């Protein structure tokens, strides 16, 4: 176990200079072929957030302010992290198929593929968060000192979803069924996560179960920065279940990487 952990860390350390460039190349790949180019990276989040806002706020007449902050900000602080996680769940869990030539044509450590792909998602996520903050400042919405924990939240999310990718990608490479299963599960992950409704409206049992959904924790942690104005480590009822899930994902990642990473080039 520790040997595999050391191996993954040393692979990432050895390739640290390339990881950033490869993440940028991944972004280029995403918007390649479109005349508007980089604009597309931000069009989808903007359109979605407006659609959600219209449905929930105008259509279903959900609350207008939450903890004294605008509903739209509450929505943005949950939906933007979800875009990051949605790609991490769908593509991140099957990342070797996105880069087959790095698996079986070029000598390249598999764990680093997960790292730079998640980093490319993080770049977009960080940009949307920066824009959100900027808009808040321009519109005069009060930004508290709790925003300072946002970079830490991002680091935690980055490590978690990288481990997630390392854990599941070998299985997805071996079996297309498994890849499809994970993709199918991403919908319930989302709707049962509290990204679009307030978790506090659930009965206590529901809240306890929901605490084990990593999507819920990540969205709530970002909302701690903007809406709830709390440090995320002062909410142990949510943090401890998340840390348990975190530990399980890391252990699965180490097991699968040790056991399967040598087999992946043979089957892809």
């Amino acid at each position, binding site marked *: 176990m520790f040997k595999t952990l050391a191996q993954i860390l040393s692979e990432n350390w*050895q390739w640290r200079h390339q990881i950033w460039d490869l993440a940028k*190349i991944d972004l*280029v*790949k995403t918007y390649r072929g479109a005349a508007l180019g980089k604009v597309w990276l931000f069009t989808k989040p903007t359109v979605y957030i407006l659609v959600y806002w219209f449905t929930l706020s105008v259509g279903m007449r959900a609350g207008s302010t939450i903890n004294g902050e605008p509903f739209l900000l509450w929505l943005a602080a949950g939906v933007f992290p979800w875009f990051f996680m949605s790609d991490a769940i769908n593509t991140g869990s099957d990342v070797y198929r996105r880069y087959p030539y790095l*698996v*079986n044509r*070029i000598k390249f450590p598999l764990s680093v593929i997960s790292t730079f792909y998640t980093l490319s998602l993080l770049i977009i996520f960080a940009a949307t968060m920066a824009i959100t903050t900027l808009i808040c400042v321009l519109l005069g919405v009060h930004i508290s000192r709790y925003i300072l924990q946002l970079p830490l939240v991002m680091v935690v999310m980055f490590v978690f979803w990288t481990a997630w990718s390392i854990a599941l990608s070998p*299985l997805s490479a071996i*079996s297309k*069924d498994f890849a499809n299963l994970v993709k199918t599960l991403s919908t319930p992950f989302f709707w049962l996560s509290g990204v679009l409704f307030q978790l506090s409206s659930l009965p206590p049992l529901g809240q306890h179960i929901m605490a084990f959904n990593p999507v819920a924790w990540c969205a709530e942690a970002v909302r701690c920065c903007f809406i709830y104005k709390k440090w995320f480590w002062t909410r142990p009822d949510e943090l401890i279940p998340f840390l348990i899930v975190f530990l399980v994902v890391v252990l699965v990642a180490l097991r699968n990487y040790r056991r399967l990473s040598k087999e992946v080039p043979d089957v892809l």
Partner: protein
Amino acid sequence: MSSSVRSDTALDLGSATIIRDEDRTNPVAVRFEHVRKTYKLFKNDRQRLIASFTDRVKYDTINASDDLTFTCGRGEALAFLGDNGAGKSTALKMITGVCFPTSGTIEVHGRVSALLELSAGFDMRLSGMENVQMRCQLWGLSEEESKELIPQIVEFSELGKYIDQPMRTYSSGMRARLGFAFASSIKPDILVVDEALSVGDRKFSAKCQQRVSDIMANENVTVLFVTHSTAQARKFCTRGIVLDHGRTMFEGTIDEAVDFYEAT
């Protein structure tokens, strides 16, 4: 050439050992000792998935390399001869490091550039230029080195204006030309060539052969060569190994090896 990336590594994969470093002064470039590569054949993908959780799933095995032993000295040009399915490509892949032996010991001293199935290994959604830039980074070249090298690669590939078009619009010949141009331009210590010299039309093929000859003229470069063409093998190589079903059938000078291969 910067070589800070990928320093000494010794991987222990159960019963297999891989020693890989960038020591280009070592008189041995590549050494295989009792290397076996076993592919697991499952009835279907579901069986393979279940096998990743438990050891109780039955599967067939096939040995692509079976007790393969040979040594290739620094600066040597070694040809692998054999019919389809003899395990030539598997051996080259293990040298390159993209696939791993099941048991045995592999030593590789020096940086390996491979001309394996040239048209593969590119990202179809990126342009030719972006692919080359990405490969330069993966090879560990600094920005200045890349800047110097990329025009040479583009020129050799004869792609002209096409270099900025997406790779998916390329013909297979164009992809292969770019692949050859890159792999042969980056000054490797060990060059692995798999059926790559029949790239493109006759003129380009001749150019490729000239390039490989030039590389081989440098006596520090080791070349491992897989081909069905015994004429090419004779032209480029000094030693030959004949493989059959993953086993070494014959090892000797290139003329003896070709004679042995043609006799069987």
